[in-house]
């Protein structure tokens, strides 16, 4: 993913690689030191590396964005799985298979959702105030859900 992002912007490849390496190092730190609190930050830094390449590259829609998104989610989920197994607990085969299946399903569903988002941009659904309002409402809904989940976690 990092190589893809760097390859898209040869002029600023150094910056993208630097940010990406920072994210990779942070992820390695999370795994080695089992600091699961920092996992979202590692993913966020990796996402920033990709975002920089997006803005530098130009206005054209990157068709590979769903793959990058699914890759990031897979990265986060595998890291979380690794952290869950930190105690070396003996798990029977069915437990491992169920989690692998759930993870695969989630990543594939995420890839599908992301691809659907990119695909919708190709459709000429029109534009205007109503669409902007719908988009804003969707964003508010997601933020609200995030806030609610965060409160339940606390």
């Amino acid at each position: 993913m990092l190589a893809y992002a760097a390859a898209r912007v040869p002029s600023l490849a150094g910056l993208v690689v630097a940010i990406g390496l920072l994210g990779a190092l942070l992820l390695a730190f999370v795994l080695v030191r089992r600091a699961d609190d920092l996992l979202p930050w590692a993913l966020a830094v990796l996402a920033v590396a990709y975002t920089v390449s997006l803005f530098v590259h130009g206005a054209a829609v990157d068709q590979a964005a769903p793959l990058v998104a699914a890759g990031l989610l897979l990265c986060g989920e595998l890291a979380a799985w690794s952290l869950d197994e930190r105690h070396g607990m003996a798990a029977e085969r069915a437990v491992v298979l169920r989690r692998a299946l759930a993870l695969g399903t989630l990543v594939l569903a995420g890839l599908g959702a992301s691809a659907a988002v990119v695909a919708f941009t190709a459709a000429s659904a029109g534009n205007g105030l109503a669409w902007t309002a719908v988009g804003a409402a969707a964003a508010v809904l997601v933020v609200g859900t995030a806030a609610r989940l965060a409160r339940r976690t606390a």
Partner: protein
Amino acid sequence: MTRIVSPRLAAYAGLAATGLITGLATGRVELVALAAPFALAAVAGAALARDPAIEATLVLDRERALESEDVEAALELVSPGGSDRVEVLLQLPAELRSRARNPRAVRLAPGEPRTLTVPLRCERWGAFAVGPVLVRARDPLGFHSWETKLAGRSPLRVYPSVETLHALLPPFETQVFIGNQVSRTKGDGIEFADVREWEPGDRVRRVNWRASARRGGLWVNDQHPERNTDVVLFLDTFADVRSAGRGTLDLTVRAATSLAHRYLQRKDRVGLVSFGGYLSWLLPASGTHQLYRIVDSLLQMDIVLSFATKGVDVLPPRTLPPKALVLALTPLLDSRSAAALLDLRARGFDLVVIEVSPVPFIEPGKGELAELSYRLWRLSRESLRARYEQAGVPVIEWLDGVPLNVPLEEVAAFRRHARPARA
């Protein structure tokens, strides 16, 4: 069950929200696409969260076992909704070791009971409580977990292993009740003791006709009667020296169990005194019930730190009956128990000290000073032993790994060649 939400869920929701808002603000659909899988994961994580409502039952295949035996714990788990990952930890005391993986993660199918067997090795004697079971269930992606303690505690009593003793120490004096010990006194019995002239009241069947014919008068046989004895096991529980899972208290308890078992088999009365930070006693009695009482009492035995000055005066008089053989099992580490034993000897008790040696459990330190202090400590122990021997008390050192028969035989040899000193 206590529900715990993984911080990852909120983090994913936050990442999704950031991506969506940034995408909306900058008009880049890629950022929305980047956020979509995380939003989906957050929603799926919240949607999949269901309390598995796990119930557990813990059953031990028996409640009593001997040291180094295996006991099987059967743990039955059932969840109406099932769970893809249930982590189970059976809480065990340090003296019990699981021979299966503990903790472990299993899958529970909806409504189907699942039984996990955990073989437990009883590594040390004691009265234990097995359990409770700590259960943590997770949803398929690990976004939510539910934790609880289940199944309560199951009691397990692990009895010390009993060593086969070939011979026991006979006390100098016997009691008045029938037993297996040949008394030194003369009376009705089986063992021949002597011949003497007939006296009025002697029964005809006791007349020794051969001796009478030879000596020209009526001579009768005297016998030694078979009597029981009183034995008091005096355990010094002021201090325990441990190393690599073994210690002087373990040896003391095992020896006390073996001795009590064997003396009670012989129809003797056995009492118990635990002389330490926590004082306890059992009045001498005989029979199987007394064996159970003694073993149960030994299972509760522990070292309780105390600085209180204690002497044998604190013991009820009936715990130390006259003519009783007092078998003291002590590491000779505490001056209070050492003084109490000398006090017992001074009161005329038939006392034998089996020194449960702490030496194998102690590593001398490195360096000249440490070695010197170690040698001084050994010398002070020798000096204490000499004090006992001066008082006519046999002190036999019993080392870890040596059968208990060896010190008992040494005491018997000592008593064959020594007369009790009157203090």
